[in-house]
Protein backbone atom coordinates (compact mmCIF):
# COMPACT_ATOMS: atom_id res chain seq x y z
CA UNK A 1 0.00 0.00 0.00
CA UNK A 2 1.21 3.42 -0.83
CA UNK A 3 2.09 5.37 2.27
CA UNK A 4 -0.28 8.21 2.95
CA UNK A 5 2.47 10.76 3.22
CA UNK A 6 3.71 10.08 -0.28
CA UNK A 7 0.44 11.38 -1.61
CA UNK A 8 1.20 14.83 -0.30
CA UNK A 9 2.44 17.26 -2.90
CA UNK A 10 5.60 19.23 -2.44
CA UNK A 11 4.99 22.83 -1.53
CA UNK A 12 5.81 25.28 -4.25
CA UNK A 13 8.76 27.20 -2.89
CA UNK A 14 10.16 28.41 -6.19
CA UNK A 15 12.43 31.42 -5.69
CA UNK A 16 10.72 34.71 -6.32
CA UNK A 17 11.43 36.82 -9.31
CA UNK A 18 12.93 40.28 -8.89
CA UNK A 19 9.55 42.02 -9.17
CA UNK A 20 8.00 39.72 -6.62
CA UNK A 21 10.92 40.14 -4.26
CA UNK A 22 10.64 43.88 -3.96
CA UNK A 23 6.96 43.48 -2.99
CA UNK A 24 6.14 46.89 -4.49
CA UNK A 25 3.74 45.53 -7.09
CA UNK A 26 1.71 43.72 -4.48
CA UNK A 27 1.72 46.60 -2.06
CA UNK A 28 0.47 48.87 -4.83
CA UNK A 29 -2.24 46.39 -5.85
CA UNK A 30 -3.47 46.14 -2.27
CA UNK A 31 -3.44 49.90 -1.86
CA UNK A 32 -5.52 50.23 -5.02
CA UNK A 33 -8.24 48.07 -3.52
CA UNK A 34 -8.25 49.77 -0.15
CA UNK A 35 -8.20 53.27 -1.63
CA UNK A 36 -11.10 52.44 -3.94
CA UNK A 37 -13.17 51.85 -0.82
CA UNK A 38 -12.88 55.51 0.17
CA UNK A 39 -15.45 56.39 -2.47
CA UNK A 40 -17.90 53.63 -1.59
CA UNK A 41 -20.96 53.92 0.61
CA UNK A 42 -20.18 53.78 4.31
CA UNK A 43 -21.47 50.61 5.94
CA UNK A 44 -21.33 52.08 9.46
CA UNK A 45 -24.22 53.71 11.27
CA UNK A 46 -23.77 56.36 13.93
CA UNK A 47 -25.16 54.64 17.00
CA UNK A 48 -26.78 55.96 19.28
CA UNK A 49 -27.86 58.90 17.10
CA UNK A 50 -28.87 56.51 14.33
CA UNK A 51 -30.53 53.21 15.04
CA UNK A 52 -31.35 50.23 12.92
CA UNK A 53 -34.96 49.07 13.02
CA UNK A 54 -35.49 45.75 14.76
CA UNK A 55 -37.67 42.96 13.51
CA UNK A 56 -40.68 41.95 15.64
CA UNK A 57 -38.99 38.72 16.71
CA UNK A 58 -36.01 40.50 18.28
CA UNK A 59 -35.37 39.24 21.78
CA UNK A 60 -34.55 42.15 24.07
CA UNK A 61 -35.67 42.94 27.60
CA UNK A 62 -38.85 41.36 28.94
CA UNK A 63 -42.19 43.10 29.23
CA UNK A 64 -45.16 41.93 31.29
CA UNK A 65 -48.25 42.48 29.23
CA UNK A 66 -51.67 43.94 30.10
CA UNK A 67 -54.97 43.37 28.30
CA UNK A 68 -57.00 46.11 26.58
CA UNK A 69 -58.59 47.17 29.86
CA UNK A 70 -55.25 47.58 31.56
CA UNK A 71 -55.45 44.43 33.67
CA UNK A 72 -52.35 42.32 34.25
CA UNK A 73 -52.38 39.15 32.23
CA UNK A 74 -49.94 37.14 34.35
CA UNK A 75 -51.53 34.50 36.56
CA UNK A 76 -48.29 33.39 38.23
CA UNK A 77 -48.57 29.86 36.89
CA UNK A 78 -44.79 29.53 36.89
CA UNK A 79 -44.45 27.97 33.45
CA UNK A 80 -41.94 30.62 32.38
CA UNK A 81 -39.85 29.95 35.47
CA UNK A 82 -39.87 26.22 34.69
CA UNK A 83 -38.99 26.77 31.04
CA UNK A 84 -36.12 29.15 31.80
CA UNK A 85 -32.74 27.44 31.20
CA UNK A 86 -30.92 30.08 33.24
CA UNK A 87 -33.30 30.01 36.22
CA UNK A 88 -33.63 33.76 36.04
CA UNK A 89 -37.33 34.09 36.87
CA UNK A 90 -38.87 33.96 40.34
CA UNK A 91 -42.43 34.80 41.35
CA UNK A 92 -44.87 34.69 44.19
CA UNK A 93 -48.55 34.15 43.55
CA UNK A 94 -51.39 35.86 45.36
CA UNK A 95 -55.17 35.62 45.21
CA UNK A 96 -57.19 38.45 43.79
CA UNK A 97 -59.38 40.14 46.42
CA UNK A 98 -62.87 41.45 45.69
CA UNK A 99 -62.61 44.93 44.22
CA UNK A 100 -59.34 44.24 42.38
CA UNK A 101 -61.01 43.03 39.19
CA UNK A 102 -59.80 46.12 37.33
CA UNK A 103 -56.20 45.32 38.25
CA UNK A 104 -55.83 41.61 37.52
CA UNK A 105 -57.50 39.63 34.79
CA UNK A 106 -57.84 36.34 36.63
CA UNK A 107 -58.30 35.16 40.19
CA UNK A 108 -54.62 34.56 40.72
CA UNK A 109 -51.88 37.06 40.02
CA UNK A 110 -48.17 37.56 40.59
CA UNK A 111 -47.63 39.55 43.75
CA UNK A 112 -43.90 39.50 43.15
CA UNK A 113 -42.29 38.82 39.80
CA UNK A 114 -38.57 39.16 39.34
CA UNK A 115 -36.24 38.53 36.42
CA UNK A 116 -32.52 38.59 36.98
CA UNK A 117 -31.29 40.19 33.78
CA UNK A 118 -27.71 39.17 34.55
CA UNK A 119 -28.73 35.52 34.49
CA UNK A 120 -31.08 35.79 31.53
CA UNK A 121 -29.71 34.44 28.25
CA UNK A 122 -32.54 35.96 26.14
CA UNK A 123 -33.53 32.66 24.58
CA UNK A 124 -37.25 33.45 24.41
CA UNK A 125 -38.41 30.20 26.01
CA UNK A 126 -40.47 32.10 28.62
CA UNK A 127 -42.36 33.81 25.85
CA UNK A 128 -42.99 30.48 24.18
CA UNK A 129 -44.08 28.80 27.40
CA UNK A 130 -46.56 31.49 28.49
CA UNK A 131 -50.16 30.35 27.96
CA UNK A 132 -51.60 33.81 28.65
CA UNK A 133 -49.39 35.95 26.37
CA UNK A 134 -48.37 37.70 29.55
CA UNK A 135 -44.64 37.92 28.93
CA UNK A 136 -42.86 38.86 25.77
CA UNK A 137 -39.41 40.03 24.78
CA UNK A 138 -39.35 43.62 23.60
CA UNK A 139 -37.00 45.46 21.29
CA UNK A 140 -35.18 47.42 23.99
CA UNK A 141 -31.71 46.21 24.79
CA UNK A 142 -28.35 47.25 26.22
CA UNK A 143 -29.35 48.53 29.65
CA UNK A 144 -26.56 50.06 31.70
CA UNK A 145 -26.40 50.75 35.39
CA UNK A 146 -24.03 51.28 38.25
CA UNK A 147 -24.61 48.23 40.41
CA UNK A 148 -25.68 44.66 40.01
CA UNK A 149 -28.75 44.77 42.24
CA UNK A 150 -30.50 47.08 39.77
CA UNK A 151 -30.45 44.30 37.19
CA UNK A 152 -32.96 42.27 39.17
CA UNK A 153 -36.04 43.63 37.46
CA UNK A 154 -39.19 43.64 39.56
CA UNK A 155 -42.76 44.08 38.38
CA UNK A 156 -42.31 47.83 38.52
CA UNK A 157 -39.67 47.67 35.78
CA UNK A 158 -41.28 44.93 33.74
CA UNK A 159 -44.94 45.91 33.50
CA UNK A 160 -46.05 47.69 30.38
CA UNK A 161 -47.77 51.07 31.06
CA UNK A 162 -51.52 50.92 31.51
CA UNK A 163 -53.26 51.45 28.12
CA UNK A 164 -56.28 53.08 29.84
CA UNK A 165 -54.60 55.56 32.14
CA UNK A 166 -51.35 56.15 30.21
CA UNK A 167 -52.19 55.50 26.54
CA UNK A 168 -49.21 57.45 25.22
CA UNK A 169 -46.64 55.59 27.29
CA UNK A 170 -48.36 52.33 26.37
CA UNK A 171 -48.19 53.08 22.66
CA UNK A 172 -44.52 53.97 23.00
CA UNK A 173 -43.73 50.76 24.86
CA UNK A 174 -45.61 48.75 22.26
CA UNK A 175 -43.71 50.51 19.52
CA UNK A 176 -46.91 51.62 17.84
CA UNK A 177 -46.01 55.24 17.17
Amino acid at each position, binding site marked *: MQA*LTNRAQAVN*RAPMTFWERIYLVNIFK*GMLITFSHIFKKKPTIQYPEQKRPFSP*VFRGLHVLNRDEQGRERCTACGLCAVAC*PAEAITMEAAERLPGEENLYREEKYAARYEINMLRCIF*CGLCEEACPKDAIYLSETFAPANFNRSTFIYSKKDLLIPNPVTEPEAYAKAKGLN
Partner: protein
Amino acid sequence: MHQVLSSTPEGIFTINVGPQHPATHGVLHLVITLNGETILKIEPHLGYIHRSIEKMCESLTYRQFIYVTSRMDYLSAHINNHACALCVEKGLQVEVPMRAQYIRVIMDELTRLASHELWWGAMAMDVGAFTPFFYAFRERETINEIMEETCGARLTMNYMVPGGVMADIHPQFQQKVKQFIAGYKNKIAEYNELVTGNVIFQNRMKGVGYLSTEDAISYGCSGPVARASGVACDVRKRYPYDVYAQVQFDEIIETTGDSFARYLVRIREMEQSVRIIEQLIDNIPEGDYQAKTKAVLKLPKGEFYQRVETARGELGVYIVSEGGTTPYRIKFRSPGFSNLSALNEMAKGGKIGDLVATMGTLDLVIPDIDR
Protein backbone atom coordinates in the same frame (compact mmCIF):
# COMPACT_ATOMS: atom_id res chain seq x y z
CA MET B 1 4.37 39.75 26.77
CA HIS B 2 6.57 36.66 26.70
CA GLN B 3 7.81 35.71 30.09
CA VAL B 4 10.93 33.60 30.24
CA LEU B 5 10.42 30.78 32.71
CA SER B 6 13.77 29.06 32.60
CA SER B 7 16.77 28.73 30.39
CA THR B 8 19.70 26.39 30.18
CA PRO B 9 23.26 27.07 29.10
CA GLU B 10 22.56 25.31 25.80
CA GLY B 11 20.04 28.02 24.98
CA ILE B 12 16.94 25.91 25.41
CA PHE B 13 14.33 27.91 27.25
CA THR B 14 10.63 27.98 27.92
CA ILE B 15 8.26 30.86 27.37
CA ASN B 16 4.59 31.43 28.02
CA VAL B 17 2.28 32.75 25.35
CA GLY B 18 -1.02 33.63 26.94
CA PRO B 19 -3.40 33.13 28.68
CA GLN B 20 -3.76 36.84 27.96
CA HIS B 21 -2.20 37.40 24.59
CA PRO B 22 -3.56 39.18 21.53
CA ALA B 23 -2.55 36.40 19.15
CA THR B 24 -4.22 33.50 20.95
CA HIS B 25 -7.79 34.67 20.22
CA GLY B 26 -8.88 34.03 23.77
CA VAL B 27 -7.62 32.59 27.00
CA LEU B 28 -5.32 29.96 25.57
CA HIS B 29 -2.05 29.30 27.32
CA LEU B 30 0.83 27.88 25.29
CA VAL B 31 4.03 26.78 26.99
CA ILE B 32 6.66 26.83 24.28
CA THR B 33 10.09 25.25 24.54
CA LEU B 34 12.50 27.07 22.29
CA ASN B 35 16.00 26.63 21.07
CA GLY B 36 16.86 30.11 19.96
CA GLU B 37 14.06 30.88 17.55
CA THR B 38 13.23 27.27 16.74
CA ILE B 39 10.27 25.67 18.44
CA LEU B 40 11.04 22.36 20.12
CA LYS B 41 7.73 21.70 21.79
CA ILE B 42 4.36 23.35 22.36
CA GLU B 43 2.09 22.42 25.24
CA PRO B 44 -1.34 24.00 25.17
CA HIS B 45 -2.73 24.50 28.66
CA LEU B 46 -6.49 24.57 28.77
CA GLY B 47 -9.16 25.22 31.33
CA TYR B 48 -9.22 28.99 31.60
CA ILE B 49 -12.72 29.25 30.19
CA HIS B 50 -14.12 25.93 31.32
CA ARG B 51 -17.77 26.40 32.30
CA SER B 52 -18.71 22.72 32.54
CA ILE B 53 -21.39 23.03 29.91
CA GLU B 54 -21.66 19.24 29.66
CA LYS B 55 -22.49 18.98 33.34
CA MET B 56 -24.88 21.92 33.17
CA CYS B 57 -26.77 20.22 30.36
CA GLU B 58 -27.48 17.24 32.61
CA SER B 59 -29.76 19.38 34.75
CA LEU B 60 -31.58 20.97 31.82
CA THR B 61 -34.46 19.53 29.83
CA TYR B 62 -34.10 18.56 26.18
CA ARG B 63 -35.63 21.84 25.10
CA GLN B 64 -33.41 23.94 27.34
CA PHE B 65 -29.99 22.39 26.87
CA ILE B 66 -29.86 23.33 23.18
CA TYR B 67 -29.53 26.99 24.05
CA VAL B 68 -26.60 26.51 26.36
CA THR B 69 -24.63 24.99 23.48
CA SER B 70 -24.68 28.33 21.66
CA ARG B 71 -22.04 29.34 24.17
CA MET B 72 -19.60 26.61 23.17
CA ASP B 73 -18.55 27.58 19.69
CA TYR B 74 -20.10 31.01 19.61
CA LEU B 75 -19.15 31.61 15.98
CA SER B 76 -21.17 28.68 14.76
CA ALA B 77 -23.84 28.82 17.45
CA HIS B 78 -26.54 27.88 15.01
CA ILE B 79 -24.74 24.74 13.90
CA ASN B 80 -24.22 23.66 17.52
CA ASN B 81 -27.95 24.05 18.12
CA HIS B 82 -28.59 22.09 14.95
CA ALA B 83 -26.47 19.18 16.18
CA CYS B 84 -28.31 19.03 19.49
CA ALA B 85 -31.73 19.34 17.87
CA LEU B 86 -30.87 16.53 15.44
CA CYS B 87 -29.68 14.30 18.27
CA VAL B 88 -32.87 14.85 20.26
CA GLU B 89 -34.96 14.27 17.14
CA LYS B 90 -33.11 11.02 16.57
CA GLY B 91 -34.15 9.89 20.02
CA LEU B 92 -37.73 11.06 19.65
CA GLN B 93 -37.93 9.77 16.07
CA VAL B 94 -39.59 12.96 14.89
CA GLU B 95 -39.88 13.69 11.21
CA VAL B 96 -38.78 17.28 10.61
CA PRO B 97 -40.87 19.13 7.99
CA MET B 98 -39.07 19.89 4.74
CA ARG B 99 -39.52 23.63 5.19
CA ALA B 100 -37.72 23.50 8.54
CA GLN B 101 -34.92 21.41 7.03
CA TYR B 102 -34.39 23.92 4.24
CA ILE B 103 -34.38 26.85 6.64
CA ARG B 104 -31.97 25.04 8.93
CA VAL B 105 -29.47 24.30 6.19
CA ILE B 106 -29.62 27.85 4.80
CA MET B 107 -29.02 29.21 8.29
CA ASP B 108 -26.17 26.74 8.81
CA GLU B 109 -24.44 27.90 5.67
CA LEU B 110 -24.97 31.57 6.54
CA THR B 111 -23.41 30.84 9.92
CA ARG B 112 -20.51 29.10 8.24
CA LEU B 113 -20.01 32.12 5.99
CA ALA B 114 -20.07 34.47 8.98
CA SER B 115 -17.63 32.28 10.86
CA HIS B 116 -15.20 31.99 7.95
CA GLU B 117 -15.49 35.76 7.46
CA LEU B 118 -14.40 36.39 11.00
CA TRP B 119 -11.63 33.84 10.68
CA TRP B 120 -10.39 35.49 7.49
CA GLY B 121 -10.28 38.91 9.10
CA ALA B 122 -8.66 37.70 12.30
CA MET B 123 -6.17 35.58 10.42
CA ALA B 124 -5.07 38.40 8.18
CA MET B 125 -4.66 40.51 11.29
CA ASP B 126 -2.49 37.79 12.84
CA VAL B 127 -0.06 38.05 9.96
CA GLY B 128 -0.10 41.82 10.08
CA ALA B 129 -2.76 43.02 7.65
CA PHE B 130 -5.39 45.15 9.33
CA THR B 131 -7.74 46.19 6.51
CA PRO B 132 -9.18 42.70 5.81
CA PHE B 133 -10.58 42.74 9.32
CA PHE B 134 -12.88 45.64 8.44
CA TYR B 135 -13.95 44.11 5.15
CA ALA B 136 -14.71 40.82 6.85
CA PHE B 137 -16.76 42.45 9.57
CA ARG B 138 -18.70 44.49 7.03
CA GLU B 139 -19.95 41.33 5.33
CA ARG B 140 -20.43 39.54 8.61
CA GLU B 141 -22.62 42.38 9.78
CA THR B 142 -24.95 41.83 6.81
CA ILE B 143 -25.29 38.17 7.76
CA ASN B 144 -25.88 39.12 11.38
CA GLU B 145 -28.66 41.47 10.30
CA ILE B 146 -30.33 38.68 8.35
CA MET B 147 -29.98 36.43 11.38
CA GLU B 148 -31.39 39.05 13.69
CA GLU B 149 -34.40 39.63 11.49
CA THR B 150 -35.42 35.98 11.36
CA CYS B 151 -33.99 34.43 14.51
CA GLY B 152 -34.28 37.35 16.92
CA ALA B 153 -30.65 37.65 17.94
CA ARG B 154 -27.33 38.27 16.27
CA LEU B 155 -24.96 35.72 17.77
CA THR B 156 -26.82 33.37 20.09
CA MET B 157 -29.61 32.69 17.67
CA ASN B 158 -31.56 30.05 19.62
CA TYR B 159 -33.54 29.35 16.49
CA MET B 160 -33.57 25.57 16.67
CA VAL B 161 -36.11 23.57 18.61
CA PRO B 162 -36.45 19.79 18.54
CA GLY B 163 -38.71 19.19 15.57
CA GLY B 164 -37.99 22.27 13.52
CA VAL B 165 -37.27 25.94 14.00
CA MET B 166 -38.71 28.34 16.54
CA ALA B 167 -40.44 30.78 14.17
CA ASP B 168 -41.12 31.12 10.49
CA ILE B 169 -38.71 33.10 8.34
CA HIS B 170 -39.10 36.84 7.99
CA PRO B 171 -41.11 37.82 4.85
CA GLN B 172 -38.05 39.58 3.44
CA PHE B 173 -35.63 36.80 4.32
CA GLN B 174 -35.32 35.25 0.85
CA GLN B 175 -34.95 38.59 -0.86
CA LYS B 176 -32.29 39.79 1.57
CA VAL B 177 -30.29 36.58 1.36
CA LYS B 178 -30.36 36.67 -2.44
CA GLN B 179 -29.26 40.28 -2.41
CA PHE B 180 -26.41 39.39 -0.08
CA ILE B 181 -25.34 36.36 -2.11
CA ALA B 182 -25.36 38.35 -5.36
CA GLY B 183 -22.93 40.91 -3.95
CA TYR B 184 -20.90 38.38 -2.06
CA LYS B 185 -19.28 36.69 -5.04
CA ASN B 186 -17.50 39.90 -5.93
CA LYS B 187 -16.40 40.18 -2.34
CA ILE B 188 -14.66 36.80 -2.46
CA ALA B 189 -12.90 37.88 -5.64
CA GLU B 190 -11.79 41.01 -3.82
CA TYR B 191 -10.51 38.96 -0.89
CA ASN B 192 -8.53 36.79 -3.27
CA GLU B 193 -7.00 39.79 -4.92
CA LEU B 194 -6.22 41.56 -1.67
CA VAL B 195 -4.85 38.69 0.42
CA THR B 196 -4.73 35.30 -1.30
CA GLY B 197 -2.86 36.47 -4.36
CA ASN B 198 -0.48 38.65 -2.41
CA VAL B 199 3.10 37.43 -2.62
CA ILE B 200 3.93 38.75 0.84
CA PHE B 201 1.08 36.78 2.35
CA GLN B 202 1.90 33.64 0.38
CA ASN B 203 5.49 33.80 1.52
CA ARG B 204 4.28 33.93 5.08
CA MET B 205 1.97 30.93 4.70
CA LYS B 206 3.44 28.49 2.21
CA GLY B 207 5.33 25.55 3.63
CA VAL B 208 4.64 26.67 7.19
CA GLY B 209 2.92 24.53 9.79
CA TYR B 210 2.93 21.31 7.80
CA LEU B 211 0.58 18.59 9.01
CA SER B 212 0.86 15.22 7.31
CA THR B 213 -2.15 13.10 6.42
CA GLU B 214 -1.26 10.46 9.02
CA ASP B 215 -0.91 13.04 11.75
CA ALA B 216 -4.19 14.67 10.78
CA ILE B 217 -5.91 11.31 11.12
CA SER B 218 -4.13 10.20 14.27
CA TYR B 219 -4.80 13.46 16.09
CA GLY B 220 -8.45 13.24 15.11
CA CYS B 221 -8.40 16.51 13.19
CA SER B 222 -11.51 17.39 11.29
CA GLY B 223 -12.91 20.18 9.20
CA PRO B 224 -10.74 22.45 7.09
CA VAL B 225 -7.61 21.49 9.07
CA ALA B 226 -7.88 17.84 8.10
CA ARG B 227 -9.14 18.56 4.60
CA ALA B 228 -6.08 20.70 3.95
CA SER B 229 -3.98 17.63 4.70
CA GLY B 230 -5.90 15.51 2.25
CA VAL B 231 -8.38 13.78 4.55
CA ALA B 232 -11.86 13.59 3.08
CA CYS B 233 -13.89 14.18 6.19
CA ASP B 234 -16.73 16.55 5.35
CA VAL B 235 -19.62 15.31 7.47
CA ARG B 236 -22.06 17.03 5.12
CA LYS B 237 -20.86 14.69 2.35
CA ARG B 238 -20.00 11.55 4.28
CA TYR B 239 -22.94 11.43 6.71
CA PRO B 240 -25.47 13.86 5.26
CA TYR B 241 -28.11 15.23 7.56
CA ASP B 242 -31.26 17.21 6.74
CA VAL B 243 -31.21 18.27 3.07
CA TYR B 244 -27.45 18.14 2.55
CA ALA B 245 -27.94 14.87 0.66
CA GLN B 246 -29.94 16.68 -2.00
CA VAL B 247 -27.73 19.70 -2.67
CA GLN B 248 -24.79 19.83 -5.03
CA PHE B 249 -21.54 21.01 -3.56
CA ASP B 250 -17.89 20.05 -3.66
CA GLU B 251 -15.90 18.76 -0.76
CA ILE B 252 -12.83 20.98 -0.74
CA ILE B 253 -9.63 18.99 -0.30
CA GLU B 254 -6.09 20.26 -0.52
CA THR B 255 -3.10 17.99 -0.27
CA THR B 256 -0.18 20.21 0.71
CA GLY B 257 -1.12 20.34 4.39
CA ASP B 258 0.56 23.67 5.11
CA SER B 259 -0.93 26.91 6.43
CA PHE B 260 -1.70 28.14 2.93
CA ALA B 261 -3.66 24.97 2.17
CA ARG B 262 -5.77 25.49 5.27
CA TYR B 263 -6.33 29.06 4.18
CA LEU B 264 -7.39 28.00 0.69
CA VAL B 265 -9.76 25.34 1.98
CA ARG B 266 -11.69 27.90 3.98
CA ILE B 267 -11.78 30.48 1.20
CA ARG B 268 -13.05 27.91 -1.26
CA GLU B 269 -15.51 26.57 1.29
CA MET B 270 -17.09 30.00 1.39
CA GLU B 271 -17.77 29.69 -2.32
CA GLN B 272 -19.37 26.29 -1.76
CA SER B 273 -21.55 27.69 1.02
CA VAL B 274 -22.76 30.35 -1.39
CA ARG B 275 -23.50 27.60 -3.88
CA ILE B 276 -25.56 25.63 -1.35
CA ILE B 277 -27.57 28.69 -0.35
CA GLU B 278 -28.23 29.54 -4.00
CA GLN B 279 -29.70 26.11 -4.59
CA LEU B 280 -31.99 26.21 -1.59
CA ILE B 281 -33.11 29.80 -1.22
CA ASP B 282 -35.60 29.80 -4.09
CA ASN B 283 -37.00 26.37 -3.33
CA ILE B 284 -38.04 26.62 0.31
CA PRO B 285 -41.17 24.45 0.31
CA GLU B 286 -44.41 25.58 1.87
CA GLY B 287 -45.64 23.87 4.99
CA ASP B 288 -45.02 23.74 8.70
CA TYR B 289 -41.81 25.06 10.14
CA GLN B 290 -42.08 22.85 13.20
CA ALA B 291 -43.19 19.29 13.76
CA LYS B 292 -45.73 18.65 16.48
CA THR B 293 -43.91 17.55 19.60
CA LYS B 294 -45.06 17.03 23.14
CA ALA B 295 -44.69 19.88 25.62
CA VAL B 296 -42.40 17.76 27.78
CA LEU B 297 -39.86 15.80 25.78
CA LYS B 298 -38.74 12.41 27.03
CA LEU B 299 -36.10 10.46 25.18
CA PRO B 300 -36.33 6.68 25.36
CA LYS B 301 -33.67 4.84 27.29
CA GLY B 302 -30.56 4.51 25.19
CA GLU B 303 -27.61 6.28 23.63
CA PHE B 304 -27.81 8.71 20.74
CA TYR B 305 -25.07 10.24 18.67
CA GLN B 306 -25.23 12.84 15.96
CA ARG B 307 -22.45 14.57 14.12
CA VAL B 308 -22.55 17.74 12.08
CA GLU B 309 -20.00 19.81 10.26
CA THR B 310 -19.45 23.12 12.00
CA ALA B 311 -17.25 25.83 10.55
CA ARG B 312 -14.34 24.32 12.46
CA GLY B 313 -14.95 20.64 11.86
CA GLU B 314 -16.88 17.73 13.15
CA LEU B 315 -19.05 18.36 16.17
CA GLY B 316 -20.46 15.26 17.81
CA VAL B 317 -23.27 15.24 20.35
CA TYR B 318 -23.60 12.10 22.43
CA ILE B 319 -26.61 11.76 24.70
CA VAL B 320 -27.13 8.96 27.19
CA SER B 321 -30.77 8.85 28.23
CA GLU B 322 -32.33 7.01 31.15
CA GLY B 323 -35.81 7.76 29.89
CA GLY B 324 -36.32 10.96 31.85
CA THR B 325 -36.80 14.57 30.86
CA THR B 326 -33.14 15.43 31.30
CA PRO B 327 -30.13 13.67 29.76
CA TYR B 328 -28.23 11.30 32.02
CA ARG B 329 -24.95 12.25 30.41
CA ILE B 330 -23.97 14.50 27.53
CA LYS B 331 -20.66 14.58 25.75
CA PHE B 332 -19.69 17.02 23.05
CA ARG B 333 -16.91 16.08 20.69
CA SER B 334 -15.64 19.49 19.78
CA PRO B 335 -13.55 20.04 16.65
CA GLY B 336 -11.32 22.71 18.19
CA PHE B 337 -9.88 20.42 20.85
CA SER B 338 -8.57 17.84 18.39
CA ASN B 339 -7.34 20.47 15.96
CA LEU B 340 -5.44 22.25 18.72
CA SER B 341 -3.80 19.01 19.83
CA ALA B 342 -2.11 18.81 16.43
CA LEU B 343 -0.55 22.26 16.89
CA ASN B 344 2.60 20.76 18.39
CA GLU B 345 3.04 18.60 15.32
CA MET B 346 2.57 21.56 13.01
CA ALA B 347 4.79 24.09 14.71
CA LYS B 348 7.58 21.77 15.88
CA GLY B 349 10.83 22.59 14.15
CA GLY B 350 9.49 25.86 12.79
CA LYS B 351 10.27 29.39 13.85
CA ILE B 352 8.36 31.12 16.59
CA GLY B 353 7.37 33.88 14.16
CA ASP B 354 5.44 31.35 12.12
CA LEU B 355 3.53 30.05 15.12
CA VAL B 356 0.98 32.85 15.05
CA ALA B 357 0.32 32.33 11.34
CA THR B 358 -0.12 28.60 11.94
CA MET B 359 -2.44 29.20 14.87
CA GLY B 360 -4.45 31.65 12.79
CA THR B 361 -5.19 28.98 10.21
CA LEU B 362 -6.44 26.59 12.89
CA ASP B 363 -9.39 28.94 13.51
CA LEU B 364 -9.40 28.36 17.24
CA VAL B 365 -12.41 29.28 19.32
CA ILE B 366 -11.34 28.76 22.90
CA PRO B 367 -14.82 28.29 24.49
CA ASP B 368 -15.28 25.44 22.02
CA ILE B 369 -12.07 23.78 23.16
CA ASP B 370 -12.77 24.13 26.87
CA ARG B 371 -16.57 24.07 26.98
